[in-house]
């Protein structure tokens, strides 16, 4: 699958653009205008921000892929490069495919080392000056020049750009007009100065009609709110910050009583992650639907408290928007490297269910489902996404209103206790499913109160160091975990006639993997694909593994953490479980998946 086309027949709706700018220069506005314009033209599109851990002045990239086939993973090739940053000029030029288009701001020109590409210097400063903008805005407007030039070259409808900017500036006329003026100038300049036809074009199609654009972080926040979230404590950390910030944004819109102005949802920015999780656990214990969100370093700090929540059986949802580790690692790069950490978080024997949304709309869905599960199972539930899914704008299905009522699990209030025909004990497994009944503070029934502790306790929540009591309690917790196995979201399975091998992947790699499946089919390597949506693995996952000759477990971390966890659950199948890991901080590509599998299959 090679993407370069001969100059004579332009590639329509099937190419990638990479924009290299300086961070802090406002290029997000320009890039989002392009992405949204493509989207409004009905062309499947994805945008990925590759930014440094810095606020201003360092190189940053944005790559946009349009694909009539709906392939939205990062592409390993780029057909168009826009160079706005002197420091990355050479590197950016190198990225381009032969025959590709290289746009650059004429004032940052460096040595041009290639003669196999189309070169267009843009008179950026000049064009911006022509619209006579206020001084302080000048730099920000620079980026609109490449938007305009690309509009001309690729055939982007200017009206769609206008819509994009309307949205971006929330209808504020002044900035919209100013930006549109620059775009206008740039389109005009391009029309007058570029006569060569572009080898890449866009055309209106109908590939986005049932979609919206959103980030996973926003979706997770909204999903939680529609899950009846009542309490969220958090501490800022990239790339998770957007999730609680979206909760704060939507709180006044969705959870404020219009009459009294009172909130039904509390958000506290804590002093650190130890406190954030502590507050969330306090709230969960006291009967509030409770959540926190963080990333790797913060999750490490939550270990001790999570161990308490596990053992004291406190419902709480923890979102981990993964970035690259170990340690501070690459805070602005993506990874799926916290699976082990989340699955076993805490000292002693702990194990936690994990949900893996594979799309933005699924972030919404698992947002509310996680809260249900936490209360039904009375245990911490993790939701793991990554920077790519969390922070980038994705086209996605609109959020679906929950199709089941809110589930609060086994909670007893005054009346329930009054009418009970058995003697309630906080940790008594009345139903034999491992999940006991709980009461929460404020319950005024004289039998409701109990004392919660992280130390040994018996079925009636009394302190106990008794060996058998301890052992029995851990065994019950294990039963609960086995119950979780039947309740967590089942995998999504894509089958083909005659496939003997299977892929297991999850989360943000879905677009790359499913694109790769098509390529593999085209190469006559038939492959089934199971998109995992949770841990512990369900019976469907086990069956899928049993039914295939070889299973490729694909993930973005170093040691193949999911592969390990599955191996432990299916050790009799371990010979067929093959780990494929990609761990550079960039998003997975279909080419990498295809090549990695072909290399293994040819062995």
């Amino acid at each position, binding site marked *: 699958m090679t993407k370069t086309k001969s100059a004579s027949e332009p590639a329509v709706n099937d190419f990638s653009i990479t924009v290299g700018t300086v961070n802090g220069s406002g290029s997000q506005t320009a890039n989002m205008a392009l992405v949204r314009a493509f989207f409004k033209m009905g062309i499947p599109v994805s945008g990925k921000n590759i930014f440094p851990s810095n606020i201003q002045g360092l190189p940053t990239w944005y790559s946009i892929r349009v694909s009539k086939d709906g392939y939205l993973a990062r592409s390993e090739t780029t057909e168009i490069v826009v160079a706005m940053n002197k420091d990355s000029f050479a590197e950016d030029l190198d990225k381009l495919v032969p025959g590709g288009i290289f746009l650059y701001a004429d004032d940052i020109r460096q040595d041009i080392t290639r003669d196999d590409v189309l070169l267009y210097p843009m008179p950026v400063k000049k064009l911006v000056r022509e619209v006579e903008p206020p001084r302080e805005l000048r730099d920000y407007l620079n980026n609109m020049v490449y938007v305009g030039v690309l509009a001309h070259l690729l055939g982007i409808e200017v009206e769609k750009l206008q819509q994009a900017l309307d949205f971006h500036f929330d209808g504020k006329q002044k900035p919209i007009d100013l930006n549109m003026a620059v775009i206008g100038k740039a389109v005009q300049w391009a029309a007058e100065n570029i006569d060569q036809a572009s080898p890449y074009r866009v055309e209106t199609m109908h590939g986005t009609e049932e979609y919206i654009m959103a980030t996973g972080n926003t979706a997770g926040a909204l999903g939680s709110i529609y899950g009846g979230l009542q309490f969220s404590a958090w501490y800022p950390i990239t790339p998770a910050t957007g999730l609680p910030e979206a909760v704060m944004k939507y709180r006044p819109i*969705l959870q404020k009583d219009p009459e009294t102005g009172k909130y039904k949802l509390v958000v506290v920015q804590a002093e650190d992650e130890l406190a954030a999780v502590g507050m969330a656990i306090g709230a969960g214990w006291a009967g509030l639907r409770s959540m926190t969100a963080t990333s790797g370093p913060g999750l490490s700090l939550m270990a001790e408290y999570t161990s308490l929540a596990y053992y004291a059986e406190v419902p709480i949802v923890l979102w981990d928007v993964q970035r690259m580790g170990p340690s501070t690692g690459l805070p602005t790069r993506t990874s799926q490297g916290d699976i082990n950490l989340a699955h076993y978080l805490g000292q002693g024997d702990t194990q936690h269910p994990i949900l893996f949304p594979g799309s933005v709309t699924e972030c919404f869905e698992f947002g509310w489902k996680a809260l249900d599960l936490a209360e039904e199972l009375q245990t911490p539930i993790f939701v793991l996404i990554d920077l790519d899914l969390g922070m980038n704008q994705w086209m996605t299905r609109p959020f679906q209103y929950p199709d089941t009522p809110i589930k*609060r699990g086994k909670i007893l209030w005054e009346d329930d206790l009054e009418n009970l025909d058995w003697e309630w004990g906080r940790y008594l497994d009345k139903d034999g499913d491992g999940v006991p009944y709980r*009461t*929460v*503070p404020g319950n005024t029934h004289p039998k409701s109160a109990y004392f919660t502790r992280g130390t040994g306790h018996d079925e009636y929540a009394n302190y106990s160091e008794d060996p058998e009591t301890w052992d029995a309690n851990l065994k019950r917790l294990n039963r609960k975990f086995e119950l979780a196995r039947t309740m967590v979201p089942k995998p999504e399975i894509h089958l083909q006639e005659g496939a003997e091998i299977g892929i297991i992947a999850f989360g943000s790699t879905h677009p790359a993997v499913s694109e790769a499946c098509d390529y593999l089919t085209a190469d006559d390597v038939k492959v089934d694909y199971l998109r995992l949506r949770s841990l512990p693995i369900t019976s469907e996952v086990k069956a899928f593994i049993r039914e295939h000759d070889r299973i490729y477990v694909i993930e973005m971390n170093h040691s193949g953490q999911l592969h390990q966890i599955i191996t432990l659950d299916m050790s009799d199948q371990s010979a067929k479980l093959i780990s494929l890991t990609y761990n550079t901080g960039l998003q997975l590509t279909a080419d990498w998946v295809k090549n990695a599998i072909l290399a293994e299959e040819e062995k």
Partner: protein
Amino acid sequence: MARKKRVNELGYSKSDYAGAPSTLCAGCGHNAIVGQMIAACYEENIPPEKLVKFSGIGCSSKAPTYFMNRSFGFNGLHGRMPSLATGALFADMSLIGIGMSGDGDTASIGMGQFKHVMRRNVPLVYVVANNGVYGLTKGQMSATAEEGLALKRQEQNKYMPIDIVWEALVGRASFVARGFSGDPKQLKALFKAALHHHGTAVIDVISPCVTFNNQDDSHHSYAWGKIHEVALHELSFVPPAETIKVEYAEGETAEVELHDGSQILLKKLGHDYEPDDRGAALQLLEDANKKNQLVTGLIYINPKQKSIFDIEYLPPSPLNRVPDEELRPSRESLGEVNAKMF
């Protein structure tokens, strides 16, 4: 059976406020705290179900098991009681939170959460049972131990002590007091006042560890406290209903009115000290520390400082009783959200 039980105005007897039998050492200062907490709640007619107890880890943090069995309680993690309490208290703002901690729990591992619960002014009676030592782990130095303290199996304390009261003052706590387990009467009055305060009430209680740090010259021993205590005032507490009836001896008593209408009466004891001036309080501590005095009493109070509940614009009815239907925003609203997503 025949004997008539003494009950409070709610009809509860003291045993309704009892906890499990104490497993603390005989004579431990923390037992005095347990006893006075029970007495204060009983006498203040607080239904045990309206109280909720939190603690960290330590002998001090075990104390909540020994009072109010009929109240919910959560014995959390070492140094992390405040966050637990903060989250939980939002569930039902009509509850009165009592947080028990130790000097190790608060001033060592717990310094961060201690500071931050105060700046949020979370309504919580925050009691630090301060014995200058780690009791439960058998006698290591705590951060409040005085310079030069010598303990068995430990090296002499080399570091400057942390003063809980001072920390609370600059941390802008809205209620700062110090008590002494050897002075139970004052302790009870302080607890009563704190139970009626609307905000974080920090009470640093010098509470001797008879097993590991009760040498006569230790600054956290009974003997030292008895000799060096300087009570700022004689303290009594007047519940809301009775405040009108109270008459003050001219010039000799100051009163502080709390937000529920109750009053704290401060009978002067030679010092001209009013607990409404943070600057003066800070200076008082500096002087006392220099002179090795153990200043006790109500050191600072600001009954008007807004609590986190005032600030957060929450409905008065318990959040944890909001019915499921009201928890989830409407189907229509999601339509709008989707529509606005581009």
